């Protein structure tokens, strides 16, 4: 029931943002649309609704955002250096990195953040062993750097999503 309520509120806010200068007509249609979506998908939205009322999570999320943007910028400069350099000497490979995250949502966010930072994309993840298979553009000495980045984001995500 609470999951449905949260999905209704989130859907309604997104509708209001889509039709930004809202008036009464838009709000009326928005309530109908959000109620319809809630009726279809209400129970799938979240397993633990109590998580939505913890304030610390949002504060940690505000801390994660600038860290993520800065890492993303550095990773892009790194890739750009490889692309622009005249003689391409890559040592790519797939490595296996263990994480300590257990929940679906935590693993999903970790995989997405790793894909956007620091020369690695997630190829697959194993939920039983909770490890990620990362394709790295330069394996060699970078393995420690990537493992360190994974651990750093892992700690932040554990505070936010678990």
């Amino acid at each position, binding site marked *: 029931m609470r999951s449905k309520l949260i999905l209704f509120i989130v859907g309604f806010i*997104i509708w209001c*943002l*889509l*039709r*930004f*200068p809202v008036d009464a007509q838009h709000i009326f249609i928005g309530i109908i649309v959000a109620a319809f979506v809630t009726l279809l998908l209400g129970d799938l939205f979240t397993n633990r609704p109590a998580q939505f009322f913890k304030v610390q999570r949002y504060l940690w999320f505000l801390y994660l955002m600038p860290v993520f943007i800065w890492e*993303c*910028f550095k*990773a*892009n400069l790194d*890739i*750009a250096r*490889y*692309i*622009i350099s005249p003689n*391409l000497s*890559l*040592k*790519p*490979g*797939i*490595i*296996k990195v263990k994480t300590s995250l257990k929940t679906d949502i935590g693993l999903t966010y970790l*995989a*997405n*953040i790793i*894909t*956007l930072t620091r*020369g*690695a*994309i*997630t*190829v*697959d993840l194993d939920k039983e062993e909770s490890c990620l*298979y990362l*394709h790295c*553009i330069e*394996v*060699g000495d970078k393995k420690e750097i990537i493992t360190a980045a994974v651990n750093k984001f892992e700690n932040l995500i554990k505070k936010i999503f678990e």
Partner: protein
Amino acid sequence: MNNIIGVIFITLGLAFDLIGCLGLFRFPDVYNRLQASTKCVTFGTCNILFGTFLVLGFNAAGIKCLLALIFLLFSSPTSSHALARAAHKSGEKLCEGSVGNEYK
């Protein structure tokens, strides 16, 4: 002032998009190409959308830019993950000069 900062963001985004597209041609195999296209194109497009938001301000189009930015941040890594996994499942080999494959 907002206009100038917005145009700077858009220029930066266009530069990263261009580099990402160059990477699609230069890198040897599908995984490296996914790296270039995912990272650079996501970051570049996010910069373009944010710059457009700064230029337009808080009106109907500006808010839609922000929403598109958030959806892009969620969907782009997920789709690259799906593509990489599908390529591996269909037997796509790593390129020559690769060091090690710990996946299966």
